[in-house]
Structure formats: structure tokens, C-alpha cells
């Protein structure tokens, strides 16, 4: 397959577009992980594509430093005891159907989550009350320092509650009414979504506040196969790829009219270590393999030098990633060798360590995607350099999660995509053993710190401090080794499109498409 792909890409000619785009029409291929989203219903959906960011707005947004900035709310205030939040709303906002967006809209919107799988997002809110047309207060059941995060996610998008109630399960499929910069024109599941500009839009985030989008029509294509998506970009069939896989970076940069826009990523690749499986039930062995991973070598060799070497479990844009230097995990072969020696594993004649006549031979689980297989081979070589023999076991990407549930893994290579510190609880919480806690960590002190981080804080600052303490303690137990923080790579036709650089947003969504322009 790879040979065929190389053959195709190597000989591909920059042919003319069969379906040339109109002047202000832009066609974009959405990220592969968004292909197959079945609706634009933010209340009930489990998967939403980039279109949902554009049809709807949220009360708050996040900037490029993951700091909260106004969107539909122009300001907000949390009570000192965390038991209420007051949001001042932007005046003059209307839905696509002309209905005004007011404090009462927010009051009517929150109960829509009741009984849905997304209910837990706003479970801490007892009720909302309209103080005035432009001021709404959330009365809390308990303090929720994570509220702004939940409000800023795509699942915190605000649809017109009246249309939502009227359409029922067809909402988000046949019609979707929000306040966002684009209106839904048509949606064919698995094929494409056509959005048209909302000419009344004047409440955008950041620099775009006060004007509608520059482009008139946006078509979001669903293409799961990366080769096909690239050939569409190359031949002018589409103008932009929302996610360029590492395998295609060279192809994009090697084509004259194509450019890459690099944005900070929200995912992280790491190596979980099963703390219950010998020899990793010994913290010294875990420390040894954790410090054996040469993160920068992996960035350069596997990811073409793009992205960052990770030194903790959280993406570096999060303030909770800022642990004290002594808790960071970065390549240190001397420390790796010393830890393994201290655990009683000494190098044998062939360089592999032994203890009590047993070789330090372990398994390393990986998934079948080519990038993971390559990464695993590099990790295998790095472990061998400190005397650890790792046998790679490859599982189908769709089936590996069920394999983890057996708890038989020793080491693995995997990734997550999340931009909140609560991911620590998801992967290391004692009540999540087997999956998603495949490190099988169940430590009493970690559980105490987890509780303090998750529910013990009244304010955002207190939550941040608690999560840093939790993060540091987890790192001290070495239930994983950090590897790599990827970047988001957006490929586009630079002869046709003008993209904002730098983009003042964490992701290319509302602000990116507001700023996107077609060159004359």
C-alpha cells in the first residue's frame, strides 16, 4: 500500500480542478477523526465535526494560550464560595432565524441536557436565572472550577431552544439553528456539509469581533483516506486539509502552491507502564525505562522535527503541566541505568539485563497504524540501549482498547487528545483500572490528591494548584513515560487562500474561518 501511495504521489501531476470553486466558496476536508459525525446536535451528539464550531457559539472561548476569552458572554464573575456564576451577555445577538439571544435563552438551554449522555457537563449547576435580558446567573449545587472549560467545549454550543424542542431528533440533521458565523445549508452524513455565511454576525471572538466571515460558502468534505484527501488538495478539488498526517508533510511542503499552517496540538503520545506486572511492580524499574526514552530523538526521527518533546502527562499549554523540574521526565541514560542497577538488574554478555537468572524481557503493545509501528520500533531500540529487551505486539487500532481491558500489557505506546488537566484522573484514577487506567495505578495518596484536584477546589487557581500536586505525585511513581506533543498541521492552497498567521486561537475553528479569505 505504501509503495502504491508513493508511486501515486510521486508521479501525481498538478492537474486542473474538475470542479473549480466559485470566487468566495471554499472547500475544506475535515479531520479524519471527525468523519462520520451523524448530526450537528450539540446537546446529544457524541461526535461533532468542525461545522458545529461554526454554526453555534458558546458563552466563552479559549485563546491560543488556552485562556478563557469572551464569546457570547462579554464578562463573568464567580462568587468567592464558588456557589454561583454571573455572566454578562453581549447585546444584539440573534439566532440564524432572527430570534434574539438573551439571558432567558440560556435559562431555557441548560435543561435540554437533562437525560442525555452530555448531562454530566453541567451537572453541578442547580439552575439558571435571568437577572436581566443581558445577565444570567448560574446557581450551583456545588463549586465547579471546571465550568468555564465545559462551557467552552463544542458540547457547550448553544442552539435555539425553541427550534430544538420543535424538531426533536431531527435537530442538527435537517436543520440547525445557532448564533454562529455560518448557517447550515445542507448536510449529507458521511459525504459533505455546506455552510453559508451569517451576514448578521457581529459578535465573534478576538480580533474578528464586529464583522461576519469573509468567505460566502464553506463546504466541509468527509474524506477518511489520507491519500485521497491529499490528491484532492493537490489537484485543486479542495482548498484545505484540516489535518495533514505526518506521512504527507513532505508531499505538502514539496508542492509549490501548497503550504502548511502549524498550530499547537492538543494531543500527547506516551508510554503507559503497567505497575502491577513484574518487573514493573518495582518503581525503580519503571524509573529506569521512563528515563530511557529519548523524546527529542523521536521527534526528529519519527515526526520530522515537528512538535515538542513531552516531559509530563499534560500538553504544555495547560498551566497544570508546569510541574517542578525534579518531577519532569526527560531522557537521562545515566539515571535510567542507575535505576535499573539499583533494582538489581545487571547487564549480561549480550547487553540485556538479568536478575536471578531471568532476562529483562518485556512486551510493548502498539496499534497497527504505520506511525505507531515506527514509533514503537524506535522505543524498542532506546530500551535496548539501557539493557531492556522489548518484544513489539501489534493490535488492530479498533481492537486494542479491548485488549487493554485484559490488563496483560506491560508497556504500550498510545495517544490521547484532550486539553484539560482532568485527563490525569481518567488515565490514573483508581476506579478506572484496566481501561482507561491501563497503567493500573491505584495508589492511596494519588487518590487523595485526585479527589482534591477533581472536586476539592472552590476556585480556578486552587484547582490549578491541586492538579499540579496530583500531576507531580503521579510522575514520582513513573506509571508512564512521556514521549511527544504533536502539532496540528493544516495544509492549504496558498495561491487561493489567505490564512491568518499567527492565529489567536487554540484550534482552527471559529476565529480561523472568520479570518480565512480567498485571494483575488
Amino acid at each position, binding site marked *: 500500500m505504501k509503495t502504491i501511495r508513493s508511486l501515486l504521489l510521486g508521479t501525481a501531476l498538478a492537474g486542473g480542478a474538475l470542479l473549480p470553486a466559485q470566487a468566495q466558496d471554499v472547500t475544506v476536508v475535515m479531520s479524519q477523526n471527525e468523519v462520520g459525525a451523524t*448530526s450537528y446536535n450539540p446537546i446529544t451528539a457524541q461526535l461533532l465535526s468542525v461545522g458545529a464550531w461554526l454554526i453555534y457559539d458558546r458563552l466563552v472561548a479559549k485563546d491560543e494560550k488556552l485562556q478563557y476569552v469572551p464569546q457570547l458572554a462579554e464578562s463573568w464573575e464567580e462568587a468567592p464560595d464558588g456557589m454561583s456564576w454571573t455572566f454578562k451577555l453581549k447585546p444584539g445577538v440573534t439566532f440564524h432565524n432572527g430570534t434574539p439571544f438573551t439571558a432567558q435563552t440560556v435559562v431555557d438551554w441548560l435543561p435540554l441536557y437533562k437525560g442525555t449522555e452530555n448531562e454530566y457537563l453541567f451537572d453541578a449547576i442547580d439552575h439558571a436565572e435571568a437577572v436581566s435580558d443581558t445577565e444570567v446567573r448560574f446557581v450551583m449545587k456545588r463549586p465547579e472550577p471546571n465550568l468555564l472549560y465545559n462551557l467552552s467545549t463544542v458540547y457547550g454550543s448553544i442552539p435555539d431552544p425553541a427550534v430544538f424542542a420543535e424538531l426533536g431528533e431531527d435537530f442538527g440533521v435537517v436543520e440547525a439553528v445557532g448564533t454562529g458565523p455560518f448557517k447550515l445549508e445542507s448536510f449529507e452524513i458521511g459525504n*459533505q456539509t455546506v455552510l453559508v455565511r451569517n451576514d448578521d454576525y457581529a459578535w465573534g471572538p478576538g480580533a474578528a469581533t464586529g464583522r461576519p466571515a469573509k468567505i460566502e460558502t464553506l463546504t466541509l468534505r468527509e474524506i477518511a483516506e489520507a491519500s485521497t484527501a491529499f490528491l484532492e488538495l493537490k489537484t485543486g478539488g479542495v482548498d484545505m486539509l484540516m489535518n495533514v498526517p505526518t506521512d504527507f508533510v513532505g508531499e505538502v511542503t514539496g508542492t509549490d502552491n501548497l503550504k502548511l499552517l502549524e498550530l499547537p496540538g492538543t494531543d500527547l503520545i506516551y508510554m503507559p507502564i503497567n505497575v502491577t506486572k513484574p518487573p514493573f511492580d518495582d518503581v525503580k524499574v519503571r524509573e529506569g525505562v521512563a528515563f530511557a526514552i529519548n523524546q527529542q530523538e523521536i521527534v526528529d526521527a519519527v515526526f520530522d522535527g515537528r512538535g515538542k518533546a513531552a516531559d509530563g502527562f499534560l500538553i504544555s499549554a495547560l498551566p497544570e503541566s508546569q510541574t517542578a523540574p525534579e518531577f519532569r521526565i526527560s531522557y537521562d541514560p545515566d539515571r535510567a541505568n542507575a535505576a535499573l542497577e539499583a533494582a538489581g538488574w545487571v547487564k549480561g554478555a549480550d547487553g540485556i539485563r538479568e536478575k536471578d537468572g531471568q532476562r529483562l524481557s518485556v512486551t510493548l503493545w502498539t496499534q497497527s497504524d504505520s506511525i505507531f509501528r515506527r514509533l514503537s520500533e524506535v522505543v524498542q531500540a532506546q530500551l535496548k540501549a539501557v539493557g531492556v529487551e522489548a518484544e513489539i505486539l501489534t493490535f488492530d487500532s479498533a481492537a486494542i482498547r479491548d485488549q487493554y481491558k485484559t490488563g496483560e500489557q506491560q508497556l504500550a505506546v498510545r495517544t490521547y487528545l484532550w486539553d484539560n488537566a*482532568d485527563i490525569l484522573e481518567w488515565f490514573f484514577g483508581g476506579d478506572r483500572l484496566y481501561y482507561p487506567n491501563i497503567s493500573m495505578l491505584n495508589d492511596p495518596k494519588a487518590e487523595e490528591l485526585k479527589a482534591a484536584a477533581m472536586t476539592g477546589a472552590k476556585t480556578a487557581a486552587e484547582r490549578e494548584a491541586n492538579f499540579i500536586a496530583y500531576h507531580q505525585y503521579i510522575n514520582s511513581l513513573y506509571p508512564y513515560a512521556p514521549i511527544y506533543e504533536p502539532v496540528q498541521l493544516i495544509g492549504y492552497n496558498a495561491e487561493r487562500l489567505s490564512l491568518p498567521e499567527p492565529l489567536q486561537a487554540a484550534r482552527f475553528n471559529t476565529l480561523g474561518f472568520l479570518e480565512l479569505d480567498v485571494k483575488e
Partner: protein
Amino acid sequence: MLGFAIRRILMLVPVFLAVSVIIFLMIHLLPGDPIDNLLKIGAGPEQRAALTAKYGLDRPLYEQYALWLGNVLQGDFGTAIVQRRPVASLIGQALPYSLALGGLALVMSTVLGVTVGVIAASAKGSWLDQGLMGGVLFGSMLPNFWIGLLLILIFSVSLGWTPVSGARGWESLILPVVTIGLGGTALVARVTRVAMIDAQSRDFVMLLHAKGVHPVVIQLRHVLRHALIPVVTILALRIGWILGGAVTVEVVFARPGLGSLLIKSLNQHDYPVVQASLLILAMAVLLGTLLGDLLQAAMDPRIRDGLK
């Protein structure tokens, strides 16, 4: 003929029930759980328990099966657990794409395959016969995704005649139809050729030659009619395949369809969608087989007499 048709239709009932049990057990006994795909980061064990109960996944398997089958018999396929849409709506959206792609590919493979088979059989043993059959054999050996990518390279990238991918207008159907149709053409051509050669050696053909009937008339009007019986069977059996067997082509050409829906739902363990999709595909195969039998019986009285 009516009695034959009724007997064949009645035979489908136990087969349908057996297939429904196999489909249900197969998906439920596979490792995995749709609830994994519902839980977002931060959701707790109590939410898992609530969702498991909400979708009835905590009930015994036989209860779940009885409930599902009862609903299906009333035409209700339920709601997708992960994709959060009525299953009938998801399948209804995917099916027209599969029917258009598979139907046109079937027409192409039938017309082209029968033509190639007749020409090859008429020139049996000649260089033309060997060339045509060698060509179709080679074509049938190539994997679909490879043919698809090659066609994209030639006709979309180099010549710019067709779109690279998508389901936007009739032009976007050309390359996927040709990709799938080529594989079917090889099969139909080989079956037609063998059946034609077999029919050519029958006594009635010799009699027609002795009576001085023109060879072309013998081939097209008499030999081909007999040779079409196995061809019709093969085509009828392919009805189920063309609906769900185009997954790789759907992926390469970025087209929605029943095959893609099934694979995606399998990956998510979205039980109601997988069960309904498989049941529809199984029904398509069963009905295709029935159609083949009925057509065979219509063309050959010995078959319907044999079942009496």
C-alpha cells in the same frame, strides 16, 4: 411455478431466524462495549452503569434478542447507541449511495462480462479467447483499492477528466463504478464462457447446425439462452455483495454507503446499527438467491419440477 415460488419463500423463514440469531450473538459475544464510546472524559462509573441500563445491555442476552427481533419484525430497528440517530434513518441515508454504486457496477459487469464471455467462447482456443480471458483473469486478481487509486491517478490527476472523490454528481460515480465493475466483469465473463462452451456441445446445437441455421443466430439465440442460467445465479448472488462489499472503494473514493456505515459501527460496537446492517445484507443475499432460483426455474422447467 407459483407453488415452487411459495415453497422457496417458506424455506426462507427458518433461514432468516437462524441468520438473525447468528448476527445477534456474533456482535454481542465479540469483546467490546458501545458504552466505552459514549463516556466522555470525566464521566464516572455510575454514569457507565446508568447508560448500560438505559440501553438494556444489563439484561440477559436472550431477553435482548427477543426484544430486538420483536421490534425488527414490526419494522423498528431502534436508535443507534453511539451515533444517536434512528437506525432506519442512518441506513436509509447510506443505502441509495450503495444501490447507485452497486447497481451500476452490476449492470456494467453483466453487459461487459457476457459480451466478453460470448466472444471468447465463440473463438474458443484462439489467441482472442486466450487474450480476453487472460485479461479478465488479470483484472480479477487486482485488489479494488489498487485499481481505484490507479484510476484516480490516470483519469483525475493526470487527465483531469473525473473528480478524485466524493458523491457530488454523476461524474463522481464513474471511477468507483468502473473499479467495482471490473472485478465482476471477470467473474461473469469466465462463467459465461464456460457455460457457452458447455452448451455448444449439446445435441440440439448440432441439430441446429445440421439444419443450416446461421452460427451467429445459434450462438446468440440458442446457446446464450442456456448459458445464461448459471450467469443469472451468479448475478443474483452478487446482489448482497454489491450492497455491502464496496467498503474499500467507498473509502478510497470518499463515498458514503452501507459498507462504510457497517465498518464504522463495528468499530464503535454500535450494536443496533451493526445488527440492522448485517440483517439487511443477509436478506439481500437470501432474496438474491431466491430471485436466482426463480429465474432459473422460469428458464428451465426441469429445476422447478425437481423440487416437487
